[in-house]
């Protein structure tokens, strides 16, 4: 899990000022500061390097276009992540690319897990279960439990109330618990 770090408000303002002034080095600095997190999140959600690259690039292109309109109402990191998530989620919706391990699992259903005995691998089962979650649950789950974002950060990035973020995480975990019921001994023990 990667810690969520921001260079701080003062650094943000200074960096933005330099970028807006046309400082190419500042653009690169901004990119270097945030690219790993944006790319990692895009990869976690898409599961595909090419798509993750596309989304990351689009994120920064859009950010550089709009950075002059950044008002500092949130941190630069949150603002950038907000763009990144918008690009990624829209991209995923548009492409409708089915990942190989995606199974036609009905939300909240254990129907697809009738194959559990034939495919006992826990990680594979978990991956399928996460894939089967509704987008809003999967996004919050990946951000919180996989990438380590706080509910406040998720709230700012996805533009949803903190309570909603917590609720989505709760729902996601509940569904996963049902879907992974076969593996209960793994966590009970």
């Amino acid at each position, binding site marked *: *899990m990667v810690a969520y770090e921001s260079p701080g408000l003062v650094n943000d303002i200074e960096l933005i000022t330099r*970028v*807006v002034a*046309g400082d190419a080095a500042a653009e*690169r600095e901004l*990119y*270097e500061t945030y*690219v*790993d997190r944006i*790319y*990692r999140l895009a*990869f*976690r*959600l*898409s*599961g595909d*390097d090419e798509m*993750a*690259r596309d989304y*990351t*690039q689009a994120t*920064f*292109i859009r950010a*550089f*276009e*709009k*950075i*002059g*309109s950044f008002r500092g109402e949130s941190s630069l990191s949150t603002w950038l992540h907000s763009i990144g998530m918008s690009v990624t989620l829209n991209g995923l919706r548009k492409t409708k690319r089915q990942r190989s391990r995606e199974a036609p699992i009905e939300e909240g259903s254990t129907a697809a897990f009738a194959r559990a005995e034939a495919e006992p691998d*826990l*990680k594979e089962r*978990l*991956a399928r279960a*996460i894939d089967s979650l509704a987008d809003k649950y999967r996004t919050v*789950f*990946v951000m919180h*439990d*996989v990438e380590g974002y706080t509910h406040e950060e998720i709230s700012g990035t996805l533009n949803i109330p903190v309570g909603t973020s917590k609720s989505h995480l709760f729902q996601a*975990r509940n569904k*996963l*618990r049902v879907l992974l019921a076969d593996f209960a001994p*793994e*966590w*009970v023990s």
Partner: protein
Amino acid sequence: MTEDKFESFLKKTAQDYNTPPARVPRDEMWAAIQAKRSAGPRVVYGGGATYVVSQRRFGTKVWLGAAAAAMLLVATGVGIGRWTAAPGGQPGVSPLPVNGQTPTGSDANPSAVTGSPSTTAGRQPAAASRQSNAVATAKPNASRSSAPGVDRNPAAVASTGLPAGRSSRADQLAAVQHLSEAEALLTSFRTRSNTDQQMDAQLGKWARQLLSNTRLLLDSPIADDPQRRPLLEDLELVLVQIVQLSPGSTPQDRDLIEKTLQQDHVMTRLRTAIPAGAQRGS
């Protein structure tokens, strides 16, 4: 208690979900971002983007439409040519005087081709060789328009060197159309702005289409001509170079193509191989 254990188990196990590569491709993505930004709308900080005003005479659709039409025509011509070519090697119609004005040895002395009306017929290569400077700056149509009739001379047909039995009229038409198109592309390439990367991208697409046609022609009876084959091969090389020009290519990359064009006298040989009036659809 069980709840906590499940959360802990979930967080731990979920770390393997869509695990990103250890190395983030920072440099590659940065290069792509820079290329897209330079090729796309110009960034204006302040919340908007303004589009670079195009200085090209024709829009993308016009270029691509023309290229697609030319490609279709060439492919159709080659197809008809192959279809109509007699198995015994005797075409039903006499070949066009495509290469009629090409003087012997023009490959070795490209300047002996165009530049003045007296030399365009290809009858006085020695005199033409003194016009090298004029050739270098001659407009594409200058040579062709100055010698209307010469190419229609049946006697010139014999000097084309084309294997009469293998190259049909349709093949000839296809070849002429293709070479005209290639000349137009190369002229556009040489006259474009060094900083117009959008134009480079369009030329790349156009070159890609012409490249496939060039290879098609190289595999056809058209390439049996001892003068035309080297021309098509050189053209193929230049087209490959243009296709490979990335949006972020340096002026040195473009200079390399320019040198190839000059060293191999591709433009001159192309113009020599195109008969008068070919671009008017004759």
